[in-house]
């Protein structure tokens, strides 16, 4: 068997595994976010918070909850890093510098996990396990909560729909943020992550709280490596589409990703919730077919990108790869080119940013595919929660375009898409491109940031474009030749991550609130059927065209110039 066939078989196996998990997990999550029972541990937590999980929230209250929780998250994580020097259980590691601590705190709270530090030398056990890994859970739960709130906006008023807490939702209310947050963590993320962590350990990922290991070497002398709660963090890092590695080399490090099986398993974890939540969506709006149409859109783009990536990586254009006889720079033997291609596409089409191979050393076009994946807005299938709400925004844009063609007020899932709705959707899709292009332009215009580049020419520009794209889209992967631990990058990428996470959420929740106020309109013969393949085709086309028009000039200067040289 050749490596190409093996790559295709791995893709098929992964697809089959995701298909098997789709119904049970999607159905389970739908129950989690509408069940009327609180678990005992959840009741304790609500009591501790001092929140009534059965109180319905309108969109401004829901948003305030998210913002308060996130502000506190940033401050807490910042403080942990700044106090590392005096925290016990920190291996004697020093406090993190203020600009880097700000960047890292924002990075993990926004589900980005951009890392301007190297994990093994900078972060001790306490910061990693009680700080960074905690945000891996809760930032993912916040993402799902926002998606669920938007779905409720579409579904309301719906006699079957309940908030987390089981009370019927009144017009204009989106559920209770604290209940959605806690349920996401307790019922979805923690159980799945625990199972996944044990699988990873069984395959060789490390999990201990010992200090620095000093171990003998074959040729004599010793080597030092860092221990830690790696498997438990790795599990939620992938499952929550976070991506922040315990080690600098992320999921290419053998202690994070020891075997070719764990590699596929980690890709599975990345894609598991983002794909399955389309069923949750379908069930909550009362038509699983609507969920399938969204799923088909996501899967089409994902499969198409994987195919393109495998093609360019196996073809290995580029002088260094031609000389080497393969695009193996930055890739591990146990994964090979095929599985590394699947990982790279899956991590950039979601908001994950974990890497099992280094994107900067992909072929010119391969690097371009990772960039384009993020530029699509990470919606195929996207981050946990954020992928679904991003895709639903594009779905609204698509019905709007179709409505323009026939001169009819568009509707989606029984709700009229009027001028308020389309304005909110338009604001949403303008935010990240604005952040990416403005920050890239400023960075390129200044004299010193270019000193951070490892590569020159088109690829050097790509390093900067990639950094801004990754930050604003909350991905977190990098063309890691860029030395991003400077005050400029720590600050600007920190801002890009903050604005790129929370501004879109404001528009999504405002949209959800607006939809939740509306009475549903009955479908007529003139209604565009959004549960059919024709609509999926329209949606894929809309996504590609909008992204292409926005980013083509920037892509032409970077990866296209390199790839077509």
């Amino acid at each position: 068997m050749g490596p190409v066939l093996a790559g295709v078989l791995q893709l098929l196996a992964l697809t089959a595994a995701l298909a098997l998990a789709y119904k049970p997990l999607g159905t389970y999550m739908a129950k989690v976010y509408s069940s009327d029972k609180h678990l005992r541990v959840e009741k304790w937590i609500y009591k501790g918070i001092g929140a009534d999980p059965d109180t319905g929230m309108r969109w401004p209250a829901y948003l305030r909850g998210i913002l308060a929780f996130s502000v506190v998250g940033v401050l807490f994580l910042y403080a942990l890093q700044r106090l590392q020097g005096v925290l016990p259980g920190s291996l004697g590691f020093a406090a993190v510098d203020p600009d880097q601590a700000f960047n890292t705190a924002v990075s993990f709270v926004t589900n980005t996990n951009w890392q301007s530090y190297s994990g093994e030398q900078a972060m001790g056990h306490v910061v990693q396990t009680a700080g960074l890994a905690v945000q891996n859970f809760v930032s993912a739960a916040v993402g799902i909560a926002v998606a669920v709130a938007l779905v409720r906006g579409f579904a309301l008023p719906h006699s079957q729909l309940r908030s987390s807490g089981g009370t019927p939702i009144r017009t204009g209310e989106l559920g209770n943020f604290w209940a959605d947050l806690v349920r996401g963590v307790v019922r979805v993320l923690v159980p799945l992550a625990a199972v996944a962590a044990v699988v990873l350990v069984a395959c060789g990922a490390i999990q201990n709280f010992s200090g620095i290991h000093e171990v003998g070497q074959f040729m004599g002398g010793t080597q030092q490596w860092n221990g830690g709660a790696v498997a438990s963090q790795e599990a939620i890092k992938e499952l929550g589409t976070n991506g922040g590695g315990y080690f600098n080399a992320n999921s290419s490090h053998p202690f994070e990703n020891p075997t070719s099986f764990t590699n596929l398993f980690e890709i599975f974890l990345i894609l598991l919730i983002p794909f399955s939540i389309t069923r949750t969506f379908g069930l909550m709006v009362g038509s699983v077919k609507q969920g399938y149409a969204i799923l088909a859109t996501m899967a089409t783009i994902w499969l198409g990108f994987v195919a393109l990536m495998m093609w360019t990586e196996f073809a290995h254009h580029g002088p260094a790869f031609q000389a080497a006889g393969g695009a193996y720079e930055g890739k591990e033997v146990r994964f090979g080119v095929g599985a590394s291609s699947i990982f790279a596409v899956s991590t950039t089409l979601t908001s994950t940013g974990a890497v099992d191979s280094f994107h900067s050393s992909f072929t010119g076009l391969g690097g371009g595919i990772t960039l384009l994946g993020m530029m699509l807005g990470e919606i195929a299938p996207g981050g946990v929660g954020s992928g679904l709400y991003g895709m639903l925004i594009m779905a609204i844009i698509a019905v709007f375009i179709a409505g323009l063609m026939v001169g009819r007020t568009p509707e989606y899932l029984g709700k009229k898409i009027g001028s308020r709705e389309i304005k909110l959707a338009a604001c949403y899709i303008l935010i990240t491109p604005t952040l990416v292009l403005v920050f890239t332009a400023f960075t390129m215009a200044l004299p010193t940031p270019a000193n951070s580049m490892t590569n020159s020419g088109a690829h050097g520009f790509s390093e900067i474009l990639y950094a801004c794209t990754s930050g604003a889209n909350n991905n977190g992967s990098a063309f890691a030749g860029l030395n991003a631990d400077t005050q400029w990058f720590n600050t600007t990428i920190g801002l890009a991550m903050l604005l790129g996470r929370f501004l879109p959420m404001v528009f999504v929740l405002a949209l959800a609130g607006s939809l939740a106020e509306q009475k549903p309109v009955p479908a007529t013969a003139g209604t565009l059927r959004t549960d059919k393949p024709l609509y999926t085709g329209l949606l894929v086309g809309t996504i590609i065209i909008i992204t292409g028009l926005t980013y083509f000039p920037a892509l032409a200067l970077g990866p296209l110039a390199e790839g077509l040289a």
Partner: protein
Amino acid sequence: MNNSVSNTARLLGAGLRALLLLTLVTGVLYPLVVTGIAQGLFPDRVNGSEVKADGRVVGSSLIGQAYNLPLKEGQETPAPDLKWFQGRPQNGLGTNSVNTQYELILSGATNRSGDNEELIQWVKDAKAAVVKDNSTGTYKVKPSQVPADAVTSSGSGLDPNISPQYADIQVHRVAEENGLSIVQVQKLVDEHTEGRTLGFMGEPRVNVLELNIALKELVAKS
């Protein structure tokens, strides 16, 4: 105004309490439970899959090492010890630059692009060296025989494996350097060649540390 300040304060208080409680669940209980289960079930693996030879720990089967001669005076890069099977180049690997009371391995890739001059040179030099080092009096390695993994650095810099092709072209040299027969050494490589997991996952591979440990035993016996 006062009202909105106190509302905000109340909300931030709720946020803080939520964070602390969820930290207890996901940052304390979860990792401790996982560690407990993992330490109970897989005591060797949780601590880094250490391997022993001659009664002493010689590394981790998961972490690639360099098999070099000691650095000579005036030398910048150490020369490979040709008695042993060689792993992949480790140009992306570093040592820690913060918390320098330790000398930690700092994992990483080169991040050089396909058109990077330095990378092109590294690849060419590595290829020439692989051809030269592995050609013996009776066996000439052709450049086209050298697989890509032999001349490129991995993502982690710690790749414990090489491709079976790279192991195969080292057989003649290793046999000659150690006074073993080619058949003996080839048999050793074949025994340590692992196919794709379940026939299709990843790529075929040879664990260099385990192969060298077996080689050392073979040399000691003969």
